[in-house]
């Protein structure tokens, strides 16, 4: 069997004796006999070598595609080598939450820097140390907006379905009402929004770019939301913020999103990174950890967990959220990624994503898959055709290519990033042509 227990049986016996215990049983004396088990019904343990072989066998049962054209909330980007090396350091990996500031300046500073970068990307004043993922960030964000007289959460139908589901689940807890705002032509329907906004509206959650990759008319949406006195919560793709007008510039109260594109692998869905930023006015409603700068008693610069009295370990049942961990290592990853890319590098990734997606849309249209929506888009778009989606995707799969996400048998949601080459996109178009022929 494998074990990570250090002490030998002989040493364990010595320690039992020193502790005044006659046996291991004596250590568990207050556990009622009726609930004690004499064995676990599990396989025997294994050596490291055998375990690794077993895990590698499972990994080998997955298909890893050579080209991926699927996004829909999880994006395949290049991860610079330095990002993996730095974030694999055991100190970062094996530390707990930085409760002891004196010996945790490294992790505290890294999160402080991450918070700053998120503020820069979103154009907002304050950011937290991260939450679990983009969907929970959205759920926490809309919860920040619920007030005594404004309880209704409006959610754009064009948001990612997983995000909407999480917002609903969180709202079920407190029985907060959630109202979906209909879409029209692949974007939020302004008429539906106008009709829904009322004195009891807490906020609107809208995603930019939206689930279909389309860019919403944010100026108009922001104006309507503001006029109704509700808060504007924008879900954003962080890579797109290398290029697009920021939530802060649109007048959003909160920006949130999935940080996975910033250096985290697809990893079958996690761990990912929920980022959150807000105006200074809403700072104290931000959930989760926040790192602040201060000084030690000798006047040296020091970083600490701050504004802790908002949090569950102090406020208990009166806390706004129960969250206590963040995704620190993922936040560090995003920070290292952004350091390695720099402002120009991030802009270049965004530019390549947009350019390639536009190219892909063009060659797919030539191959017979027409764009569904005539809207500006970033790096995702929907095609529509009479050829069954499953047939197209199956043909691509045979060539080691993961096609877009089938929304139904006619529509496919495609994504392109800097990892998709022109050659591969031409190949996809060729395969589509063949399928349609």
């Amino acid at each position, binding site marked *: 069997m494998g074990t990570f227990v250090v002490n030998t049986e002989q040493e364990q016996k010595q320690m039992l004796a020193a502790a005044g215990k006659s046996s291991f049983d004596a250590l568990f004396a207050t556990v009622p006999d009726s609930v004690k088990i004499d064995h676990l019904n599990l396989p025997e343990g294994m050596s490291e070598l055998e375990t690794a072989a077993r895990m590698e066998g499972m990994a080998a049962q997955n298909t890893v595609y050579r080209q991926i054209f699927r996004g829909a909330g999880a994006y395949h980007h290049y991860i610079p080598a330095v990002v993996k090396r730095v974030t694999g350091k055991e100190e970062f990996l094996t530390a707990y939450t930085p409760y002891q500031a004196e010996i945790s300046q490294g992790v505290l500073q890294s999160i402080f820097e991450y918070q700053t970068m998120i503020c820069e990307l979103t154009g907002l004043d304050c950011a937290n140390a991260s939450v679990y993922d983009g969907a929970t960030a959205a759920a926490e964000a809309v919860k920040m907006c619920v007030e005594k007289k404004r309880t209704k959460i409006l959610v754009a139908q064009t948001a990612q379905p997983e995000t909407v589901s999480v917002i609903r689940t969180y709202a079920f807890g407190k029985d907060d009402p959630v109202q979906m705002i209909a879409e029209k032509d692949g974007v939020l329907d302004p008429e539906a929004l106008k009709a829904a906004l009322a004195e009891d509206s807490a906020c609107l959650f809208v995603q930019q770019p939206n689930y279909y990759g389309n860019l919403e008319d944010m100026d108009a949406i922001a104006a309507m939301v503001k006029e109704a006195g509700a808060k504007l919560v924008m879900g954003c793709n962080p890579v797109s913020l290398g290029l697009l007008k920021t939530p802060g510039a649109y007048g959003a109260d909160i920006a949130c999103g999935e940080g996975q594109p910033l250096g985290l692998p697809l990893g079958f869905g996690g761990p990912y990174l929920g980022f959150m930023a807000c105006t200074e006015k809403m700072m104290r409603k931000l959930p989760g950890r926040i790192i602040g700068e201060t000084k030690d008693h000798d006047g040296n610069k020091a970083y600490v967990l701050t504004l802790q009295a908002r949090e569950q370990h102090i406020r208990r049942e009166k806390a706004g959220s*129960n969250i206590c961990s963040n995704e620190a290592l993922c936040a560090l990853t995003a920070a290292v990624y952004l350091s390695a890319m720099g402002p120009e590098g991030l802009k270049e990734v965004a530019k390549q994503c947009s350019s390639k997606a536009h190219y892909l849309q063009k060659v797919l249209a030539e191959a017979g898959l027409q764009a569904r929506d005539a809207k500006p888009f970033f790096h995702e778009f929907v095609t529509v055709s009479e050829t069954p989606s499953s047939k197209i995707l199956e043909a691509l799969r045979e060539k080691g290519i993961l096609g877009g996400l089938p929304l139904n048998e006619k529509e496919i949601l495609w994504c392109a990033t800097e990892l998709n080459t022109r050659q591969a996109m031409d190949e996809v178009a060729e395969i589509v042509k063949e399928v349609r022929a």
Partner: protein
Amino acid sequence: MKTVFEWGAPGRRCTILPALDVEEQLPEAPLRDAAPRLPEMSETEVSRHYTELAGQVFGVNNGFYPLGSCTMKYNPSVNEEMARLPGFTGVHPLQEDETVQGCLSVLRTAEEYLCEVTGMDAVTFQPAAGAHGEFTGLLLIKSYHTERGDLKRTKMIVPDSAHGTNPATATMCGYDVVNLASGADGLVDLEALRAAVGEDTAGLMLTNPNTCGLFEKDILEITKIIHEAGGLVYYDGANLNGIIGVARPGDMGFDCVHMNLHKTFSTPHGGGGPGSGPVGCKEFLAKYLPGHRVTGDTGALRRERAEQCLGDMRAFDGNFLVVVRALTYLLMLGKEGLPEISKNAVLNANYMMSQLKDVYPMAFDDNVYHEFVITMEQSVKRGGVSAMDIAKTLLDHGMHPPTMYFPLIVHEALMVEPTETESKETLDEVIRVMKEIHEEAQRDPESIKASPKKAPIGRPDEVTAARNPIIRYRFGEETN
């Protein structure tokens, strides 16, 4: 240390991407006015900066880390290797089921192990952390009462020794919290519990062994009282390390549990996350589980929604790469290795306590499990050193301090959890250091109160940090 924004210079960069191979086409939408102020660095500088930061981080693989209730055990290297296999990292969460049989096998196998370890019938891996698991568990309970139309159950009972996440979670689920005062013995007071339950009881949240390091010996009676009142019982798995392989929450009458893969199952904490907080439940609650259930036979596994799925706790199927690490650990330890965890965790705690109880007053000095609680209350009353002072002095000895000021029911608490992965000589050294600190505290308390002296910084001014929050770097042009 310089911040990352003070490194580099305009125009410096890493060369990561090739030239664009298609015509440039920007989105036809408003663009940002100015570039984000991200650092402009060469790769040398990126590496040096973060290496410098890493030099001021203390992880469990650096040294002893007896943080009570956090189970800081050694994080095995093989876990990391497995989590970096391209066959796991390169898989898109929305790939078709037939192309992710390996991932689904991981989830299925981990579910089987965790069901056996907890005595539950089904597990979801969607919750990303312990608190997220608590939220999931309570939503299961809420779904159960709601479906039965039993809407008068508005109260969640939480012992006053519980983690703050428990009452906060109950509030997130719309419950009123009934704080249950613990008995003088640190355990649930059965009479108080009987008086607290009623037709409005939705459930009880309980940690066992509890946060005092004690096993609730009346656990069968406790769960019976709640069930007879019509409520359900939630097991907070924070302290599962103290009984794993010896006793199971499912056999004690608990209806659902969360586990912390980053505590009990050796996955790294990453400086505060990512963790993973899978939730297990009994069969009658399984139909409400969030996210997907893995169903079908080996080779033809599928993801399916449970019959009355309560929704999603987060996108996709959980912190999968954390589950990979935990499964690696579970497979390695197996049926004989898992009980060795709790036996040695409890032994190490009892050994340490037995060697320290003559000099440090213990809040409860017998029948402790994987952790024990020192109280510095008397010392503080005499004007002597506090729990904080002891903790800060330990920093000067290259040790991470125990959890301070928790549980709340013990004043001036230091909660010590040595875990099973520490050697006898490490414990002996810590015992020696703690005795030395005690002696110095008697001789020269002011010296202890001035600690730490060797750490990179002294005690930080948290009051100023909270009164005038500076939570992002101030670039040159801004002043505060």
